[in-house]
């Protein structure tokens, strides 16, 4: 059984974080919001100010709400509002 999640950052958030991908230990399901709060406390994400950004979240490549459930093994992406088209 998997015991972590893969976390991706894009665009201005990726630049603020300084890297595009990390793994984070997770053994129990939690909400996307709880995961966001948990990683905000990491030293290496200190300067990215994740808590105070207007972000979207995707779980397994689908846009999700902040109370959606994250399960160990999932791919989670945090990113700013999109500007394609």
């Amino acid at each position, binding site marked *: 059984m998997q015991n972590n999640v893969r976390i991706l950052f*894009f665009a201005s958030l990726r630049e603020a974080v300084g890297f595009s991908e990390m793994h984070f230990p997770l053994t129990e399901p939690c909400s996307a919001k709880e995961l966001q709060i948990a990683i905000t406390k990491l030293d290496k994400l200190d300067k990215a100010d994740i808590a105070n950004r207007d972000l979207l979240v*995707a779980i397994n490549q689908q846009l999700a709400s902040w109370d959606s459930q994250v399960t160990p093994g999932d791919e989670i*992406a945090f990113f700013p509002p*999109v*500007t*394609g*088209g």
Partner: protein
Amino acid sequence: MELSNPNCQLNCIVQFDDFDIATEYAKLQLTPHCGAVVLFSGLVRQQFDGCLQGLELEHYPGMTELAMLKIAKQASLKFEIGAITAIHRVGILLPHDQIVLVGVAAPHRKDAFAACEFMMDFLKNEVPIWKKSHFYHQGSSQSAWVETKQSDVNAKDRWHGKITR
């Protein structure tokens, strides 16, 4: 997995390469029972008083394609249409370059126009692509991430409550 209309051909692509509108149109033109084709092409618009050097488009490989297909499937259920083609470019693009193409073939023009506009309104809000502007300012090269426009959010929101999922 979203439902779609099996009688509607869906063709969604993300690519670095340029696309040829005539090639895509020729395919749409042959869609059975169709009397209307609407094409939308989004171009890199000159900005910053002519000092835009280019746009850099970043995306989320894998999710981008899924998100485009999801919108196309919704359009195929919501409108009476026979085919949708959606091509979005990523990478570095120059002023006047083509960014995105959405083409819709339908029996009648009303559905073709509506489906094409629906596709664009949702592409702008739900597909993980981000633009960064590179421009000259007071003699130096600068860059800035493009901000979301409220008008794009409003354009999407006007469809709410009418969407068949």
